[in-house]
């Protein structure tokens, strides 16, 4: 089975044999793939019962916990990478969690839906309603996404927090990129992927 394209991009960023902590690891697909193909060891953190069971079935070490309760169980500098895919926007304090990621890990990797995408801007600017799209499918009143941001917002936050961006890729909801997305990431990218570390 082919790996989800965004996870494929991320696994390409991860050095074989590293220690990885996956925040909001879902069904454990990424960690299972990294364990099998990149000799990675690590843990996933997840809150959902059904996902915990899937992680256990996949042979992934998983800890049932709420990311909003913090990461104080983890000691400083114990992981090579702390990964968080499509979860940043659902966290109470994203800026604090980014700091925590870099306390625990040498590098951080995050992906999030880019709220600056053209379609989103058009829906809000001309439609006058909260955007709903393939990569942001939830209605405003029923969404886990409480801290949506744009590519520009994220990079501003990084700069403010003293975080150095090592790598950026933007893709559409099928996780393909294009020349346009590379030139105008905040306008044409639907999903943003970043690798970063402390300055």
């Amino acid at each position, binding site marked *: 089975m082919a790996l989800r394209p965004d996870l494929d991009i991320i696994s390409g960023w991860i050095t074989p044999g590293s220690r990885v902590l996956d925040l909001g690891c879902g069904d454990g697909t990424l960690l299972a793939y990294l364990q099998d193909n990149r000799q990675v060891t690590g843990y996933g953190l997840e809150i959902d019962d059904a996902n915990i069971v899937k992680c256990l*079935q996949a042979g992934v070490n998983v800890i049932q*916990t709420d990311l909003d309760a913090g990461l104080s169980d983890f000691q400083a500098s114990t992981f090579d990478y702390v990964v968080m895919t499509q979860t940043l926007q659902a966290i109470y304090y994203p800026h604090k969690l980014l700091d925590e990621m870099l306390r625990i890990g040498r590098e951080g990797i995050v992906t999030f839906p880019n709220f600056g995408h053209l379609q989103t801007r058009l829906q809000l600017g001309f439609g006058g309603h909260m955007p709903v799209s393939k990569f942001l499918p939830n209605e405003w009143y029923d969404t886990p996404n409480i801290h949506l941001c744009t590519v520009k917002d994220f990079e501003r936050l990084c700069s403010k927090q003293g975080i150095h961006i090592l790598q950026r890729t933007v893709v559409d909801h099928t996780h393909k990129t294009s020349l346009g997305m590379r030139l105008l990431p905040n306008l044409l990218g639907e999903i943003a992927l970043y690798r970063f570390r402390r300055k």
Partner: protein
Amino acid sequence: MPETLPPDSVGLVTPQSLHFDTPLQLDCGRTLPQYDFVYETYGELNAAHSNAILICHALSGDHHAAGYHSMADRKPGWWDTCIGPGKPIDTNRYFVVCPNNLGGCKGSAGPTSTNPATGKPYGPDFPIVTVKDWVRSQAMLADALGISQWAAVIGGSLGGMQAMQWAIDYVDRIRHAIVIAAAPRLSAQNIAFNELARQAIMSDPDFHSGHYYEHGVIPRHGLMLARMLGHITYLSDDVMRSKFGRELREGKLNFGFDVEFQVESYLRHQGLSFVEHFDANTYLLMTKALDYFDPAIDFNNDLAAAFQQAKAEFLVISFTSDWRFSTARSREIVKALLESGKHVSYAKVNADQGHDAFLLSIPYYLDVFTSYMKREVTT
């Protein structure tokens, strides 16, 4: 009583017994020169002897973990929800061993068994045993059964403490430790409850400093109180409310001190039935084993250091309404395992049944347990 045995039951089982003549050195400094071990087994040991699982019982448990002793039994073994064909501890795949711990009162050497030195029951002279002593004695049993390494050591509550101690003391003899509704050591509050239970027993006029067998009595009232107290800590406030509420047995207040509320009736019933099949001296010993358990103490109170040498993989499970050993206590175990870089998974099960939840059929709990057990491939 089952008319026919359920298909997912291990069926009719017979306890077995082994006698050991090799002296067992105990933490208290004393030695047990010889002892009997009573245990049950379910499933078949494979040719490689690699599919054996050790079940460790909790405070009032025993070797009868699953199945029935006879068709007249009212209830199966204490962990029948989790042990059997197709259950989380699948007896189609595993050979399951459950001993009665030393100090117990169900056949293994303990206060009720005969002291070879005197020809009389040990009574209060049976040495105080610790979790480490139990693990050491279980290793002797494993040797006798030809099991050099357990696929898993599994237990809830005090049983989970034994699973942890196994992973620390016998790093090469355990592949997985499953630690359910346990704690890395008792809190002052836990010890306080145990002390109250002991005082209830020891202050009973029929206790006779533990020599009650010779007087032909048992400290019935004290043991009953101890059990009633225990039961309060095993249940959550929520489950007590939903089970009993403030319901009155006779529908009205009688302005007296007899049983009026249903919860009183329930506790008295639990206490009274317990007295008939459990020994007071054993109860004292078991609570002491709980109080003394503290694997970090040999490692400067650093639990992560205690786990450092462990090679086992861990599954830790806790229950949200358990206030005897709360989820926070399980998280302490998980934190230490993370710090020492061990393979560990942790599930927090939503359950309103309190500490007793680990014995019950809760779908998510059984899913987690089953999924983890399937990971362990036996050859």
